[in-house]
């Protein structure tokens, strides 16, 4: 086996040193009746070339070479080449969690820079080293708000990513945290009257997403005012990190739960991604997850360590703020490098291109179909309502190697034949025009079929 660095002679010598006759002797503690006396029924040992072939084959069965209009919590942005060059360095890739600070300064300093940039972008004062993803970050942020606020209820926007809502429901069930939902308005934003009514004396926090699941930017100021007036905290989930380049961050939030996948992390069929929680300094001791802090060594030199560990499971056990241990460090490094590459000016320009592509696409779709929620500003997603079931349109688009927008009926039956479309800096005008063309064709054929029916009826 090519990963095993021992010759038969080495093994012999080692067994002799131990004083064992055979390796089986070392497994004597396992009662014989449970020992597996056969080969595992799994694929036989394969050569590297066979493994590569296997996965290339799977790749061809997996929309290789398609253009996609999918977003909905997982975004296709360009990944600068140097991200993979740098994260492939073994000293980053094959290092453990940096508990031994003296030989982990590389990882620790890079997390410190990550925390700093997340703070700058979100307008918060502290950020942690990462969470599993945006959905669990949102659920953990809500639990954090419950600990801080002392009340137990949560009001969640229906325009929060539906799968994030499902994850929150799972986490909340056994914490005795009642969850209620506030719907959305004609403009796609949260219905403020419903929100006001939903917040009661037991509401610990309100959880919204902005830009929300429909791509609409919420009026965070107004929502924060309503929540705070009633003694509830505001947790804002951000699923599309690139929006922070051009959309004002929710500075009035008490906690921000982010998905940073957009910053240089491959789509990877849904993971691994990079959740982050950011908040105010005064709340830091209730924050879950690892934190890196600056300090000095015995000679007074600057250095970095994992800090405030008394919040964490390995110290506090059942009294910890969360059970989280392994997080997403290497993915956070991708995010860190991405933020460094684009920086202060590039992130803004990048976000602006997303805005322009989306404005163009929404405008074109509006000529032929109905674009919902146009009363409020949006970032890079929009909802198109069609006469025909979007699944049918999408299956024709697949013939052009285009993956159309996400049909919403599964999550929002009330929206009927609607689909969520996303454009990023990678979406070409020609792909937009092709997709718009097929939607227009669908509308025309539905219309003429309807006319035919009416003709016959007359």
């Amino acid at each position, binding site marked *: 086996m090519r*990963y*095993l*660095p021992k010759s038969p002679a080495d093994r012999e010598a080692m067994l002799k040193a*131990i004083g064992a006759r055979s390796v089986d002797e070392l497994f004597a*503690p396992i009662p014989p009746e449970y020992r597996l006396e056969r080969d595992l029924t*799994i*694929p036989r*040992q*394969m050569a590297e070339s066979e493994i590569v072939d296997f996965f290339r084959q*799977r790749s061809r*069965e*997996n929309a290789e070479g398609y253009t*996609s209009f*999918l977003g909905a919590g*997982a975004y296709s942005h360009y990944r600068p080449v140097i991200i993979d*060059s*740098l994260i492939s360095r073994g000293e*980053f*890739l094959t*290092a*453990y969690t940096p508990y*031994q600070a003296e*030989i982990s300064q*590389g990882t620790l300093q*890079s997390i410190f*820079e990550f925390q700093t940039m997340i703070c700058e*972008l979100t307008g918060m004062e502290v950020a942690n080293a990462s969470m*599993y993803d945006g959905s*669990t970050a949102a659920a953990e942020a809500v639990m954090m708000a419950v600990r801080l606020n002392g009340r137990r209820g949560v009001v969640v926007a229906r325009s929060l990513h539906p799968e994030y809502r499902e994850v929150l429901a*799972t986490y909340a069930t*056994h914490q005795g945290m009642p969850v209620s939902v506030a719907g959305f308005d004609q403009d796609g934003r949260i219905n403020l009257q419903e929100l006001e009514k939903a917040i009661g004396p037991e509401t610990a926090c309100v959880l919204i997403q902005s830009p929300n699941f429909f791509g609409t930017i919420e009026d965070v100021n107004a929502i924060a005012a309503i929540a705070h007036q009633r003694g509830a905290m505001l947790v804002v989930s951000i699923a599309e990190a690139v929006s922070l380049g051009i959309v*004002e961050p929710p500075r009035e939030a008490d906690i921000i739960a982010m998905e940073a996948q957009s910053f240089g992390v*491959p*789509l*990877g*069929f849904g*993971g*691994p991604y990079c959740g982050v929680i950011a908040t105010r300094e005064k709340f830091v001791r209730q924050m879950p997850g690892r934190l*890196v*802090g600056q300090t000095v*060594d015995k000679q007074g030199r600057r*250095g*970095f*360590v994992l800090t405030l560990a008394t919040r964490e499971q*390995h110290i506090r056990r*059942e009294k910890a703020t969360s*059970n989280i241990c392994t*997080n997403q460090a*290497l993915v956070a490094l991708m995010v860190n490098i991405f*933020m460094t*590459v684009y*920086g202060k*000016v590039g*992130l803004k320009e990048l976000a602006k291109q997303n*805005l322009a592509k989306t*404005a163009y*696409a929404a405008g074109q779709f509006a000529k032929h179909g109905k674009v919902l929620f146009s009363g409020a500003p949006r970032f890079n997603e929009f909802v198109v309502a069609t006469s025909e079931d979007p699944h049918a349109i999408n299956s024709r688009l*697949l013939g052009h190697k285009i*993956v159309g927008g996400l049909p919403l009926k599964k999550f929002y039956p009330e929206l009927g034949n609607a689909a969520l479309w996303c454009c990023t800096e990678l979406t070409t*005008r020609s792909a937009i025009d092709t997709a718009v063309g097929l939607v227009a064709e669908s509308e025309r054929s539905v219309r003429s079929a309807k006319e035919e029916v009416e003709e016959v009826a007359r």
Partner: protein
Amino acid sequence: MKDRIRKATRQVNQNEGLIFEKSSAGKAAWKLPPLDVPDVDSGKLLGSAERKDLGAMPEVSEIEIIRHFTRLSTWNYAIDLGMYPLGSCTMKYNPRVNEAVARVEGIANGHPYQPEKVSQGALRIIQTLSECLIEITGMDAITLQPAAGAHGEMTGLLMVRAYHQSKGNARKKILIPDSAHGTNPATAAMVNYAVENLKSDARGMVDIGALEAQMNEDVAALMLTNPNTLGVFEQDIHKIADILHAKGGLLYMDGANMNALVGKVRPGDFGVDLMHLNLHKTFSTPHGGGGPGSGPVAIRKILEPFLPKPVLAAKADGTLTFDYDRPQSVGRVRAFYGNFGMFVRALAYIQANGPDGLRQTTEDAVLNANYIRKGLEGVFDLPYTTPSMHEVVFSDKTQAKKGVRTMDIAKRLIDYGFHPYTTAFPLIVPGALMIEPTESEPKEELDLFIDAMKSIAAEVEEDPQTVLDAPHSTRVSRLDETAAARKPVLRWKPAS
């Protein structure tokens, strides 16, 4: 003293400030293509939601970024540099073909919501890995959704709760041995179960008498690591399972130490009802400085209705699909389907090994641990003499007489060119030195490690101060953690 160190030599190492300290206006590492659609006035589109300024975000060039992170990387220890004997962490070789196949286009760029018709490749990977892990654990079904080990524990306990609930009583508490990982009790709390400690016997195993006394209809499950954190196989495992099952409880196995078992024995065959695996330990996906992980949960048939949704299913024509219609499911524990990129790597690892390779891997892991145990017996105190599987736990009892504790020895090990072992864990061994070499170490590296440990033990006798002041050869000496926690500085700030 220095000439005792054979594995490492000091060399010039680059200094590097924070990236923000290199920033100046007008430098850039990015270039966007020209827009092929009309430009927009963002102020007009966004109104008051438009962001004007990105604060202290850096402005640097590409070469500076390359040098910045490359320099930082050289300040890290890594498996690629040498042995990483962290007990319970299974720091094994991370094969590079795993990284290559995870980056093949359709795999790296697949969108989680693309139609199933054009996702069969990804679904096939999930199915194949699931089948392999079910066979390896001897269980009946699996979910790959949890993002890490602790997340798997939570998922598992959610299923335990749902199972008991379906029988009319969710029960109140989880039994956890005093040798357990900290995540176990923290997880029980997240699922709103009380934690009851279970003590270990003189062999370092579950005290069967105590278990019998504590087991009753309020206990939902026992969370057991096997081999436990002492590296000891729980020989009475089936008796443990029987005691639990007799009172309707479930046996949860923390699979952190599965590297001692793969291909040799299957938890499903010795009475385990459910368990999580750590793909980033046993199945070679890289730790990456603290993640990403992946924590699949394998279960017995009785728990299948409660699996998180969606569940992978095959249609009549053989195509794969996600089944969302799972009325008894515990729900979702994560958006999408889990850390898919880690599934790809774990499957590539299993394929590279095959059944013979996996068995040999386990044998070598156990061989290495026992070789170290033999090499250091008598030099360091061995609090439990029960046979070791894949890791061995010593204590600092002998060295403590000279005022040198496990952490000091660990820090001195850094000067010798090794990453420290795990210190101060498990909690049942005061001053623990918990050593897990994994199968990835050649005999030469193990011999160097044994020599280094012996040499440090000699230093403790001759010159304890050298050990107490270690490390001596790193960029920074021991850091002031108390100050870091008392007045936290968690971000860089521009000089005002």
